[in-house]
């Protein structure tokens, strides 16, 4: 019987098969072993000689900040990418995982952040839909029966007849996991499982994972939250900048040590950060709270950004950054709290008001929020200004004035384009971003919100963005920099906070931040930091 078959049998009968295969050195064969995995993309080495091991019945936490290489690594295990170098061993056997389908056949299953469930079908129907190991379609009765069995064994609490769209998020996640189990997966990979869960839902899920592990399944979950690890993981492997920094049993470590491992770098003072004496507060936020569908997305956020200052918001994505920006620029209304820009209250649900009061925003999603790909470069550059008297009279645009302005902006911001009349989609990502900068900064705003401004850019473009932002800073503009890249925050900002769970726990001076404090904050340990 193959190792895979043995694992399945165990799952079905709930017992360990007698005489599990043992390796030559007497230790049990790990469920998964990665040896020296490397993966490079143009411009970045995502994984650099990563080795890790997951034992059968073990829950491994994969810890690291954004860009550490966790997702890439797991995508390799799931067959989405091919590694450039290194070996993968599943159950002691060397394999090349060709595709997700192949990974499934090897017993590897991955639960992504976005669920793939049919909303108006029942749980049983959804599980029946997903490909299973046995050929032919799964009979609904068989599926329902095996679900009830799994349910009672693992304490699942999911009704096979429940309709998916009525289920809370936590239950949907469990359904996704059940789909994998039904396919015979014995190595489960979860990507940031708590992203959409409430604390009680997480407790249920961790209990479920624990019972799966006790039955012989292995679990790897990707996280940046220290809390999650200490609740449920057996061991933790920390990745940083594509390399393994350490791998320790949870029982032998503590949160500060992990925090240091996760973030630990020489936090050096970057001399080329312009030192500007900050002026009056331009952006004042008091008690900003956002509650939706029972979830608290922003909680009592207080901060000030002064003229000539770069204020940073660090932290891993998904902690309320998107919602914060939407509330600030007038795309979403807050539940409570006050925003003042240049002294004036902003309380209308109106992006034009934000702009009128001197606000500018460089959005996170360049292709869908920053630019209109199908429109011309000129249209994109002037999109906020067409109705100004300098460009139109009685609703009719003056093409010469518009072109003149567009060409001036293109020159000033070094946007490489054959002309201002070509569609924006013909420009490279870097030049598109330069166009966004041209549009937003070219208005002489008093506040700039830059959300992941260098995402997806090459070194030259990144340098350009930083240079332009620093120019604005020297000119007395207040800058709110929200970024998932800690390096960016540390090099560009004067003061910063780490956003966790919709809160700003502390404000740190960039010069005084130490890795342990930052790591703890990012890991969600605000009290300890």
């Amino acid at each position: 019987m193959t190792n895979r078959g043995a694992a399945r049998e165990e799952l079905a009968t709930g017992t360990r098969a007698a005489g599990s295969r043992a390796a030559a050195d007497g230790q049990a064969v790990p469920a998964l072993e990665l040896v020296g995995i490397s993966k490079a993309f143009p411009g970045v080495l995502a994984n650099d000689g990563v080795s890790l091991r997951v034992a059968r019945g073990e829950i491994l936490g994969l810890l690291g900040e954004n860009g550490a290489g966790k997702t890439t690594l797991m995508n390799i295990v799931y067959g989405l990418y091919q590694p450039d170098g290194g070996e993968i061993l599943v159950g002691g056997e060397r394999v090349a995982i060709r595709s997700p389908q192949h990974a499934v056949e090897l017993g590897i299953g991955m639960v992504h952040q976005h669920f793939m469930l049919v909303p108006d079908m029942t749980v049983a129907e959804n599980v029946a839909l997903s490909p299973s190991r046995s050929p032919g379609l799964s009979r609904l009765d068989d599926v329902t029966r095996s679900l009830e069995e799994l349910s009672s064994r693992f304490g699942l609490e999911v009704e096979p007849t429940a309709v998916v769209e009525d289920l809370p998020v936590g239950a949907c996640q469990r359904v996704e996991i059940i789909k994998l189990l039904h396919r015979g997966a014995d190595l489960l990979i979860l990507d940031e499982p708590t992203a959409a869960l409430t604390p009680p839902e997480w407790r249920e899920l961790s209990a479920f994972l624990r019972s799966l592990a006790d039955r012989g399944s292995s679990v790897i979950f990707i996280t940046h939250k220290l809390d999650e690890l200490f609740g449920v993981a057996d061991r933790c492997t920390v990745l940083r900048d594509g390399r393994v920094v350490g791998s320790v049993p949870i029982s032998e470590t503590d949160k500060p040590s992990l925090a240091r491992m996760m973030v630990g770098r020489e936090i050096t003072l970057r001399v080329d950060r312009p030192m500007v004496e900050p002026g009056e507060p331009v952006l004042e936020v008091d008690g900003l709270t956002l509650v939706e569908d029972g979830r608290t997305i922003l909680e009592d956020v207080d901060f000030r950004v002064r003229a000539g200052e770069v204020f940073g918001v660090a932290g891993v994505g998904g902690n309320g950054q998107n919602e914060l920006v939407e509330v600030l620029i007038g795309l979403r209304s807050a539940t409570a709290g006050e925003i003042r820009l240049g002294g004036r209250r902003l309380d209308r649900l109106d992006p034009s008001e934000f702009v009128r009061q001197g606000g500018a925003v460089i959005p996170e999603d360049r292709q869908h929020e920053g630019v209109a790909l199908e429109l011309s470069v000129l249209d994109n550059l002037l999109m906020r200004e067409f109705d100004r008297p300098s460009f139109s009279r009685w609703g009719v645009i003056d093409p010469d004035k518009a072109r003149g302005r567009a060409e001036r902006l293109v020159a000033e911001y070094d946007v490489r384009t054959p002309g201002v009349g070509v569609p924006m989609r013909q420009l490279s990502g870097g030049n598109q971003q330069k166009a966004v900068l041209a549009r937003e900064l070219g208005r002489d705003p008093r506040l700039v919100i830059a959300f992941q401004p260098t995402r997806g850019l090459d070194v030259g473009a990144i340098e350009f963005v930083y240079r332009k932002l620093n120019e604005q800073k020297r000119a007395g503009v207040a800058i709110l920099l929200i970024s998932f890249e800690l390096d960016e925050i540390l090099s560009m900002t004067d003061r910063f906070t780490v956003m966790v769970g919709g809160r700003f726990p502390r404000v740190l001076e960039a010069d005084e931040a130490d890795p342990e404090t930052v790591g703890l904050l990012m890991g969600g340990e605000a009290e300890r930091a």
Partner: protein
Amino acid sequence: MIDALRGRLREGSIEFGLSVLVALAALAVASLVVVASGVSPTEGIEALVDGAFGSDLNLAGTLSKMVPLTLVALAWIVVFRAGRFHVGFPGQLLIGSMFVSIVALKISLPGIVHLPLTLAAGALGGALYAGIAAWLWAKRGVNEILSTLLLNLVAVQILAWWVRGPFHDAGSPLPLTEPLPESARWGTILERTQLHWDIVLIPLAVAAVAFLLARTVFGFRIRLVGAGERVARYAGASPERVGASAIVLSGALAGLAGSSLVIAGSTPAMGEDPGFAIGFTGIAVALLARNSPVGAVPAALLFAALTQGGGVMEGTVGISSSLVDFIQGLMIVLVLAATTLLFLARRRRRAGLGPDATRGAGEPAPRAVA
């Protein structure tokens, strides 16, 4: 600058070439059908061309059929650019005709005022009727394709009742209104033909729509909202407000088409169906024109010629005029196929460029290498 122009021209000629190819392909397939029915293709084509352009009478017929087709095509183009396509033009056309009959028959004015007023009534009727669907979409999220499709059916019933009830010509056994007065009708250009002065609406409307889209702030907002909902919101435009306005504007154009069908028609009285089907054919015209306002003119000419020539062809060589419907339908299918292929080709070409374009979901963004 020159490169941009060249690029623009190249894209424009690709689009134009595509339309020509589609038209030729459809005609080629149609010739096969003609051969199958025992007529030589050359004879069939000759009959078609002769029927469309062969005499003053035939030419007049073709040109006059162009007017409502162009107007409906423009209506589609406006609403398509805003990203809000619907199929309510037939209904808006009918309600526009209804309003026309009111102003034409119930008000007595000299022609120089009566005619423009009648036209305005047609546009108003279409706009109001479209406004129903626009409101339903903007305020209640009702899918506008569904709502306009259903509203079309309602309009048919309204007009059927209209010409049998309140506006029925008591002296006639047929479902017709009284004859509309000359003051409310377009004059004929060529005596005893169908060619009326409403043909001036073609260049006027095309110029107006092209100008609106390219050179006005409102037109820019239409294009912005059509380019992306999120980026439009970030730029301060309201997709709901602009989208609803575009739908209403398209209704006005469709209503104007309805007016042409009534007051530039062959009979002075209005029946229960001034031209429901044209509301759909106009969409086909716009598709063949690849959604270009200027391109709508030759496309409308082609469709009008086919309809006019097809009718005559039936009489001369005995090929059923439904062949024309077949050709028109085939052109729609081919245009959609061509559009899809073009889109896929562009996407594949773009996949060849840089890391930016190929990065899949879940992949980390490339960071600066130290």
